[in-house]
Structures are given as structure tokens and as C-alpha cells.
């Protein structure tokens, strides 16, 4: 769905099939999506890409996505975690970050992403 005002979401997810699902859910709701499946790719996109929001898987196989989260925080880009371990599996430094437990309903993802957006607007 081409949309001139579409917001761009960075999705970091290391499982191919899950990445496809997240991308489809967001694209179907009118977002532009950039996907990173490996830590290095996630880090460089978090540093350089023009994104408004991000959805981060926590466990990336080669490590976790906390370094990506730190960059996003520094840049003031709101993000949420989507993880199979749920909020309890998060390191204490990230306890306040919105978290979705996998698997989730597509509507839950969209709702949380929209909330990120609202909080971002108020922050400005």
C-alpha cells in the first residue's frame, strides 16, 4: 500500500518465518518496513536508517538486541520488544520498554506500534 505519509518501521528478527510475518502485518497496516535479521545489520540500520519506530526480537542467536535498543534510545526512536520469553525475560535495564510476548495476534502488534507512535508524538 503506497502511502506518502507512511511511517518507516525497523524490524529486527532473526527467524526467517517470523520476520516475514511481522513484515506482512506491518505492511498490511500501511507501514514501510526495513528488516534486519543479523546483529550487525540491525546495528547499522539503527545507526543510519531513517526510521520512526522499531520492533526488536531480543534473542538474535549471535547475541541479543540490547545494543540496537541502546542506539535507538540515543536517537530518540521509540521501539518495542517482541520476544518468546516475555517481559520477565528482559534484562532489568530494559524493564520499562513495551514488550509483546510471542506469539501474538496481529492486532496486538499494530496496537502497540500505534501506541509507540502516540508516545513519540507527545515526547516532541
Amino acid at each position, binding site marked *: 500500500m503506497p502511502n506518502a505519509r507512511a511511517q518507516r518501521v525497523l524490524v529486527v528478527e*532473526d*527467524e*526467517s*518465518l517470523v*520476520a*516475514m510475518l511481522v513484515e506482512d502485518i506491518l505492511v498490511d497496516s500501511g507501514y514501510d518496513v526495513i*528488516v*534486519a*535479521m*543479523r546483529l550487525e*545489520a540491525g546495528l547499522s540500520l539503527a545507526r543510519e536508517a531513517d526510521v520512526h519506530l522499531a520492533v526488536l526480537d531480543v*534473542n538474535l*542467536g*549471535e*547475541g541479543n538486541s540490547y545494543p540496537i535498543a541502546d542506539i535507538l534510545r540515543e536517537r530518540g526512536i521509540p521501539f518495542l520488544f517482541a520476544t518468546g*520469553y516475555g517481559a520477565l*525475560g528482559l534484562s532489568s535495564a530494559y524493564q520499562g520498554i513495551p514488550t509483546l510476548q510471542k506469539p501474538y495476534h496481529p492486532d496486538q502488534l499494530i496496537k502497540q506500534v500505534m501506541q509507540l507512535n502516540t508516545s513519540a508524538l507527545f515526547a516532541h
Partner: protein
Amino acid sequence: MSLLESERQLQAVLSNATVAIFLMDERQHCAYMNRAAEELTGFTLSEVLARDCPLHDVIHHKRPDGSHFPLEECPIDRAFPTNDREQGEEVFVHKDGSLYPVAFTASPIRDKEAQVIGTIIEVRDIREEKAAQERQRLLINELNHRVKNTLATVQSIAAQSFRTLSDREPLEVFNSRLLALSRAHTILTDENWESASLLLLIESTIEPFGRPRFTLKGPDQRLTTKFTVTLAMVLHELAVNASKHGSLSVSDGRVDITWSIEDAQLHFEWVEVNGPKVSPPQYAGFGSRLIRRQFAMEFNAEVNMSFKQAGLVCMVDVRLPSFTDQFHLGQYLPALNEVGRDT
């Protein structure tokens, strides 16, 4: 240092050691055991000396099944003539008749002329370790069981949810993908979620498409769990496409799968032979996206698909993920245990 003083020191070392230490003479009789050895076996040194028989017949005379264990067959006994630091695990018999697992290290003692005159044996109680291993085994079994049941449950939910659809094809597509995933999990389950054989994974994924229609050529290789699961899905999509549009859609078509591995660099080729003329647009959608985009991104793979006269040729070049980065199930077991209690 006087002889008396050094003997006192040695005594202090032995009495305070937490590992059991036995000193055996050339007849395999126990000449000395420290306090930890007395606690472990239930016998005092004087009791053992009074028995005047090989130590084996006091603390190691029964096998775990209860049958008699002759001295000649004892692996600790084998340390006596030659080997230094013979190690292993055995099951000992306590004074009260109970059996307990131990880890031992046995080394010969030599005199000035290098003649073997006895054996020194260290023994450690490994009941706790064995119990922990057993708990881990039970948890892995439980996890395997749940994964399988969950996949079967998902299959049922899909069947129930789509039963009113007149078009059966989407459900068929779903079932065959779910079963491909399940087959990969079966291989991983059989290997305790540590690794999977590349050859076995290929064999198992192509099996539903008619094994005689494939030729396989390449060395076997251990794959990490994550690579195993994604590769299974990739191979499945290639096979599905071949049977719908490619070489497996005609009677004498086949697929030649060849691969080579050098320094963890995998070169893999899927070559369809004797197929109908295929054109690129036929190959789109889920399979194409999974292979060309996701698989390539997930593993930094180079994927090349070309549509030749005889069918699809898919070439993959990828560095196989190393096992040092792999998620270890064991390290997460306490957490899984917690989750299990909550649900």
C-alpha cells in the same frame, strides 16, 4: 623439614581432602584410605584392613544390576600394571548395601626401580551430577514432547478453522509446510537439540516428494539448530515448486542435489533435470521470498536462482554458522522449569 613433620603435613592434607583417596598394595588390598574415603564407603580403614581381601571385593563387588563383579573385569584394577591416571565412572557398593555412582582416577605407584608396587585411587561421589543430568534428560524429553504436541495442535486448529473452505488447497499447503517443520524438529529431537546431520535433513525433507527422483551427492556435516530449521523450510519450498511447476511435475524429471564444504563454507546446488521449460514468473510468492530474501539475510547467504531450459537451478553459498554461537538448551533449563510450573 624432619620426616615426622612432613608425615604430619601429609596426614593433614589427606584427612582434609574432600576427595576419597585409597592406596592399594600390589595384591589390590587397601593399605590406606583417608577420612573422605571412610565417609564415602561407610567402612573404616581398620574394617577394610580386617577383611584382608582386595578392596574391589569390599566396595565394588556388585554391578548396578546386582550381579557379581569379578576383580579381573574391573577397569580400576586395570590401572594397576601400566597406565597413569586411568579415569572413568563406576558404581560402588556402600557398607549399607546401597549403590552409588563415582568418578575415579587411578594411577600406579612405582618404587625406585620403576617397578609398580601399588595403585593410588581418587574417588569422587557424583550422585548430584547424575541426578542433575537425569533432571536435564527428563526436561528435554518433556520439551520435545510439548513441541510435537504443539505442532499437532496447530495442525488441528488449522484443519478445524478452515474446514468450511471449499478450496482445500490452502490447507494442503499449510499441512505440508507444517510437516516439513515437524520433520526438522524430529531430527533435532533425536539429537538432543544439539545439531543435525545435513544428509539426514535433506533425506527427510525430500522423502514426501519421492526419494527415487532425487540424486544426492556431498559430504555429511553437522548443522546448528537454527540453520537446520530454516534450511528444511527452504528445501521443502524448492521441492514443492519442483513438483508443481518444475522437473518433478513431469514423469521422467528429477532433481540433482550436490554440495561441497570447505572451511565451513557450504556450496549447495539444486538442479532440476528433464523438467518442462520454466519461466521466472512461475516462481514467486512464499518460497521465493523465503529463499532469496529471508534465508539470504538470516545467514548472509548468497542465493542464485536461474531458470534453465531443463528446470530451475538454485545455488547457495553460505558460511555455516558456528556452534560456539549456538543457544544451548541446558543453559536455559532452569528458566524452562520455571515456565513449566506457571502453566
